[in-house]
């Protein structure tokens, strides 16, 4: 497709379950970002990939959060032992070239995660 694709659009899980959120960036985009957007807040940075390399994971809130992009295209954000405070919209964004550039970031529709 032409844009960033995220799945699922909605995910409901019970506290303690593991979840996996998928991001399919625009074809050929080198940079991939994950953001977390809590209700009533702006998106907050979680982690960054340049191709398959995770160059920054400083925004991941705990070691229950894990992200990968093994082949430099599709990325998965995994949350283990989910907690209620993990409820948020998770946004994926991609841009054409690496972190030194001024290329704009293109966002997906997000995955709305609700933890019961």
């Amino acid at each position: 497709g032409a844009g960033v694709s995220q799945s699922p659009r909605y995910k409901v899980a019970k506290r303690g379950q593991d979840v996996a959120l998928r991001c399919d960036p625009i074809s050929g985009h080198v940079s991939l970002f994950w953001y977390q957007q809590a209700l009533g807040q702006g998106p907050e940075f979680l982690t960054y990939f340049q191709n398959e390399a995770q160059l920054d994971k400083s925004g991941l809130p705990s070691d229950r959060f894990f992200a990968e992009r093994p082949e430099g295209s599709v990325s998965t954000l995994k949350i283990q032992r989910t907690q209620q405070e993990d409820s948020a919209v998770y946004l994926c964004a991609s841009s054409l070239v690496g972190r030194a550039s001024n290329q704009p970031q293109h966002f997906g529709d997000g995955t709305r995660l609700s933890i019961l």
Partner: protein
Amino acid sequence: AQSVSQHNHHVILSEAASLELGCNYSYGGTVNLFWYVQYPGQHLQLLLKYFSGDPLVKGIKGFEAEFIKSKFSFNLRKPSVQWSDTAEYFCAVIVYPHQTGANNLFFGTGTRLTVIP
């Protein structure tokens, strides 16, 4: 720490009214500035951006923003709003050198704009 402030949480205007949404950031170094818009049920879309040069930048759909370095501000304006401008508007910043390893965006909390026909 880097922060972006949007002081207006919800703005309600009638069609044809003029719009100005405030954005201030707290970083003294080099910044790239952005306004993103999120229409109901849609993804974030880039409205306009400032990297360098003319501090008055024009974006899509008649929006413009002015970078005032001395005020650390990047306010969004539109002379005459339409009902279709109803959306959430986010100001965002990339700082240089990067505070993290990435050129990630730092976002404000957003301003919800409701335009009444």
